[in-house]
């Protein structure tokens, strides 16, 4: 009896020793180690109103410490840039500046991008309940909004990736619509 327990313990300890456990802290560490990046993306929007998804594309950039830029090029040019405590939305050459603190939805949206791209667990935890599944080479992070105000619009956000690289961001809206952004 006693030896069995000991054997199990040894096996568990052995696996733990062999490979560092993949948990949220490890994922955040990996994400945080990534340098600034800029990559093309394709986003597909699925909706009950649409017979086929609307596809848009452009580039998604992250510059340390906390600047996120999404430049949509197709079907038309439009961009937003999250920097400091502000989101600047530009279309038709007109910029609209919004303080992140002004709307909870805006703050939560900015936190989801910034938190994931910079590996900031504290920031993510402020707005979402986090559930990590998968392994280091193929992980999936489910983020469910904490604030009731947000759940009226967003049901959950699912981010997946390989090690320190974010590959896909899926946003499921409360209405049943969803968008899937794939980073190349």
């Amino acid at each position, binding site marked *: 009896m006693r030896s069995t327990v000991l054997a199990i313990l040894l096996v568990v300890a052995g696996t733990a020793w062999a490979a560092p456990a993949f948990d949220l802290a490890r994922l955040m560490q990996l994400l945080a180690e990534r340098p600034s990046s800029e990559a093309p993306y394709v986003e597909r929007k699925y909706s009950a109103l*649409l017979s086929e998804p*609307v596809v848009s594309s452009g580039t998604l950039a992250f510059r340390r410490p906390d600047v996120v830029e999404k430049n949509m090029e197709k079907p038309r040019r439009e961009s937003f840039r999250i920097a400091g405590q502000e989101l600047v939305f530009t279309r038709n050459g007109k910029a609209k500046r919004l303080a992140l*603190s002004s709307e909870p939805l805006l703050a939560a949206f900015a936190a989801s991008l910034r938190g994931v791209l910079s590996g900031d667990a504290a920031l993510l935890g402020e707005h979402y309940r986090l559930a990590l599944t998968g392994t280091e080479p193929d992980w999936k992070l489910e983020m469910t909004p904490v604030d009731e105000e947000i759940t009226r*619009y967003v049901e959950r956000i699912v981010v997946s990736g390989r090690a320190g690289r974010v590959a896909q961001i899926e946003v499921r809206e409360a209405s049943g619509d969803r968008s899937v952004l794939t980073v190349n």
Partner: protein
Amino acid sequence: MAWPRAAARYALALLLFAALGLFSARLLRIEADFSAFLPPSATPEERLLVAQLRDGLVARLMLVALDGGDEKTLARASRALAERLGHDPAFDYAANGGAGQFAAQGEVLMRHRYVLGAEVAPQRFTATALRAALEENLAQMASASGLLTRGTLARDPTGEFAAMLRRLEPAAAPARRQGVWFSADGTRAFLIAQTRAPGFDSEGQAAAMARVRSTLAEVAPQVQATLSGPGVFAAESRRLIRSDAMRLGMISTGVILVLLAFVYRSPLAVALVLTPTAFGLLAGVLVVQALFGSVHAITLGFAATLIGESVDYPSYILLNTQPGETARAAARRVGRTLMLAVLTTVASAMALALSSFQGLAQLGVLTMVGVVVAGLTSHRMIPWLLGERVLDFPRLRVPASAALAAARWPRAVAFVATAGSIAALVALHPDWWERDLAGISPVPAAMRAQDASLRREMGAPEVSVFLASRGSSESTALEAAEAMLPALERWQGEGLIRSFDSPARYLPAPATQAARLRALPDATTLEANLREALKGLAFRPDAFQPFVRDVAAARTSPPLTRAAYAGTPLGTKLNAQVLELDGQWLVLTSLGGVADTARVRGALAALPGSHTQLVDLKQISADMLDGFRREALRQSALGALLIVALLVVGLRSLRRAARVVAPVAAALPLTVALLVAMGQRMGVFHLVALLLVLGIGLNYALFFERPPADEAERSRTRLALALCSTSTVVTFGCLALSATPVLRAIGGTVAIGAVLSLVLAALWARSR
């Protein structure tokens, strides 16, 4: 028949007093509507002003600022408070800037979007136009900003609802944090609550304030609230005046009782001295109640001040008794002078009684009745009560400063000062009159400043300029207001006005609504156009069925009326801005940020066939106060003439009458000049106080001037005058220490005026 025994006489007097007191306690209806103290409103504009001041939107707006917590805590408190107050019967609504706060109102706007939309026209629903709208929507689908509008896309692809919300967005709103209104620095959360109670209803407002505080204490005990707004002012000023008057009244009563006790050394005498004022006040209140149907709370407060003069009457008699003499004998001796003292006060109060301010008229009547009854009580009842009893008290000697009286220079100084004051007042006239209604407000300046800064930060309306569009019916008035919309938009573009808030935007005239509905295609046409527009687009063919259904429903729905907005903030607004006045309908469009009223007036005059007028509440209130000033001056002149006539007849000598009038005639301008020099402007309250100065000043002069029998009587008169003037100065000097502008104005004016009257009477009215 023998006199009833003394005890029976006192019992009878007490019984009479109790009966009168009980009677008035049962009958009296005290009213607190401050507008009784506003100038009478003769023109429609003035009636509009009074209506706005009493019940207008702005008058019922309560500004709430929350602090004492971090951003999250304050935002949570703001949400909870708005939610609770929204369901509170004391409030129409409470807004905090939160999204989705007024779901019912949003539903009304959504349901009626096709009669509300200025862009609704036949060409908006053609296949081409729909195609353009759908393409835009498709692009929006990809955009990050589409999340919020997507909920209504299937019902409203042409975007009427969003356009409506953009139009209704206020020009100036506070910054937003955590989704609710905040100060720019993020330390205070803001709410606006619309009370049900009218702004002037200080009790209703106090109850509403208490509701805010108690609700906040339940939902967020650590958060503090600052409340402001016209209603808060009404409630707070009432509380301040009440507590100040109470505290200072108690102090001065205490001092005067000590003074009376020191002079008379007899509780009976002290009680007797207070009797005439009590009877006078009761009788006056009853007469006002009978004539006006109610007594205004402020009248009551001021009347106690005005007939305060009558506290002096018994002293003029009692202190004049020689050792061993009954009061009856002294009353006979000073009777004529006392009668003149009473009648001159009646004459000056007549000026008030004839005023077209209801509050002042009440005050005048109360004073007239009060002093006559007090005079009779002093002259008849007190001697009757005392009967053969002789009051024994030490005749304190008040030294006459013979040297001062003999010297010529003090008279010369007084004369020069008076002439200088009159010249200065004439030169500066009319700058020293209060021309701003806010200036006669009893609210301390610090509170007004706090309100102004809060209002600025919140972008809360400070309505003083608006357009009044007239019509014989609600719909024609709305049409007139609607006709102004293009011009208003142009003026806004030109910077003539910063913003405007027209009810015609959310309640279009019935004809306009009908025209917009006619622009909607029937279901078959719309479906055909939509099919055409959807060709080749990624939308599902049946995606916009809700849109087709809504348009069909709109075509047959009854017109949008004010009733549809019942219980929403816009409903409250409409009730205040669409109103019937004197059988005419008025639609009020408030204008914000009007830099130059004259230019707007000019632009308005240039519009052909307009049924709209510019109403400038500040200008109207200044005009009203000017009118009041003219009326007050005219009536005071009348009162003065009457007083002079009375004195000439009563004293049977022009010379003697002049000697009595001169000190007061000099004391009044000197007092005004002193107050103006101290930076005050003369308002209604000062005027009331000056009338009291006139009354007591004439009394001093009359008694100084009365030819005495001997040096003993001269000394007794000096004692009476010393006692009376000291008690007046103590009472009103106390009031002058108050933090409340009304009480300070009255207190300061009377205290200064009484001292000046006494000194001048001693210098000029002395009989030789």
